[in-house]
């Protein structure tokens, strides 16, 4: 528990984390607001097929905050001090304070998870009045089960960012890759045009926990990427499997790797 508290203290004393928290809290509400404004006319006319997604789209596309959080939690450990300050890295200090690498790994993953959960709850609290303000009585009520799915999606995304950065030891590659994938060009969207296996990628499968609720059993499958492919539970399970495998590999590499390597 002491190691966990230390990791929370470590994260909250980094200015970059506050930027991540700000983005994490505000970006979903902004995205949800833009989405609601764009769909408002169709919703009022009763022709929108995307009404059930209102609000949730912000949670799906607004995960950048937790991506930055997951990356920074690790990359900050490996940031080399200025050239004047020799080649020191904080990871040496961290491992001299918490000598068990597994314990440090778990404390850090725990801190990232808890902050992600709280951040997602805060994002939801901001999304509800935003969509209500724009759509008025047309705003759909957010369901608890789907919100819980979104919280899982955020936490798993943060842990994927955390695991990837632990493997690369630096933030630029995972940060660029995950940020572009989650906002501009989704790799799974592109790949879905080629193979159905794309629906098993963690971001696409994970989003099924709260997005794409159109039931393919009862409605015509349009072949659109936005059709539901898995049940929310299966989608969550697939994403969790990705997280578990990646964190398992990251933990083994972290345990075996020399700090100086």
């Amino acid at each position, binding site marked *: 528990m*002491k*190691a966990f*508290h*230390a*990791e929370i*203290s*470590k994260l909250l*004393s*980094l*200015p*970059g984390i506050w930027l991540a928290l700000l983005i994490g809290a505000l970006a979903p509400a902004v995205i949800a607001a833009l989405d609601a404004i764009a769909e408002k006319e169709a919703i009022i006319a009763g022709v929108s097929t995307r009404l059930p997604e209102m609000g949730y789209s912000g949670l799906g596309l607004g995960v950048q905050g937790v991506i930055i959080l997951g990356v920074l939690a690790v990359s*900050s*450990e490996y*940031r080399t*001090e*200025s050239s*004047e*300050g*020799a*080649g*020191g*890295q*904080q990871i*040496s*200090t961290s*491992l*001299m*304070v*918490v*000598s*068990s*690498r597994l314990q440090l790994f778990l404390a850090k993953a725990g801190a990232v998870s808890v902050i992600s959960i709280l951040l997602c709850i805060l994002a939801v609290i901001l999304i509800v009045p935003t969509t209500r303000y724009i759509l008025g009585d047309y705003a759909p009520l957010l369901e608890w089960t789907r919100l819980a799915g979104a919280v899982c999606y955020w936490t798993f995304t943060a842990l994927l960012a955390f695991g990837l950065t632990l493997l690369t030891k630096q933030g630029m590659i995972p940060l660029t890759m995950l940020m572009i994938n989650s906002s501009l060009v989704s790799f799974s969207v592109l790949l879905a045009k080629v193979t159905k296996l794309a629906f098993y990628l963690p971001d696409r499968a994970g989003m099924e926990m709260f997005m794409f609720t159109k039931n393919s059993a009862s409605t015509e499958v349009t072949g659109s990427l936005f059709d539901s492919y898995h049940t929310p539970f299966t989608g969550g399970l697939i994403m969790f499997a990705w997280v578990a495998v990646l964190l398992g590999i990251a933990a083994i590499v972290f345990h*075996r790797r*020399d*700090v*100086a*390597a």
Partner: protein
Amino acid sequence: MVLTINNLVKRRGTQEILSGITFEARPGRVTGFLGPNGAGKSSTLRILLGLDHATAGSALIHGKPFAELQHPLRTVGAALDGSGAHPMRTGQAHLRWIACAAGLPRSRVEEVLDIVGLTKAAGTRVKRYSLGMGRRLGIAAALLADPEILILDEPVNGLDPEGIRWIRTFLRKRAEAGNTVLLSSHLMGELAETVDDVVIIKQGRIVADGTLQEVTGSHSTLEDAFFALTSEQAGDAW
């Protein structure tokens, strides 16, 4: 024995960095681990502190590897390269998370900042620290839990003359109080007055190990002895 390094070997790829290092550090004494840059001093200390893995041999603290210590910070305080802090964090915030992880009161952070003379810079981000201030912060972190063993890698690097004088006096006091102090350096002159025991490493091998008098031998200074030993061993002229 408090610190025991036994036949330590470290290879990276085809390169052998340490070739069977053996020495000990005793309580109540300052042990100087001396050698030129790249001789293997930091590699040895990193293995001793559990940061790197040994290819063969052992480096033990009270008979245990570092990773098995119940209270690492209360047993060993160490300062390696630089400050060991993230440049964007303040010195105080850096010490606070360490205190939190070791279960120490926050008041201890103010105490060690005072000991190393960083009280006024406590709220400044580490990236604004000079090299010497960074070293002082690293030493403050090592002292947080008042450990019985201090391990310092190149502690006088970047310190001004006043800082060097301070650390000499400080280390002597720690050893006289019965603590174990192991410090590495490539600066012989700065340390001759501070150390009791000397271990000299050259190209991954120990070339001398004994008390200051034994290692200095017939040479007039430790520095002379060091150059004589290291150049004889390498067969080259300095």
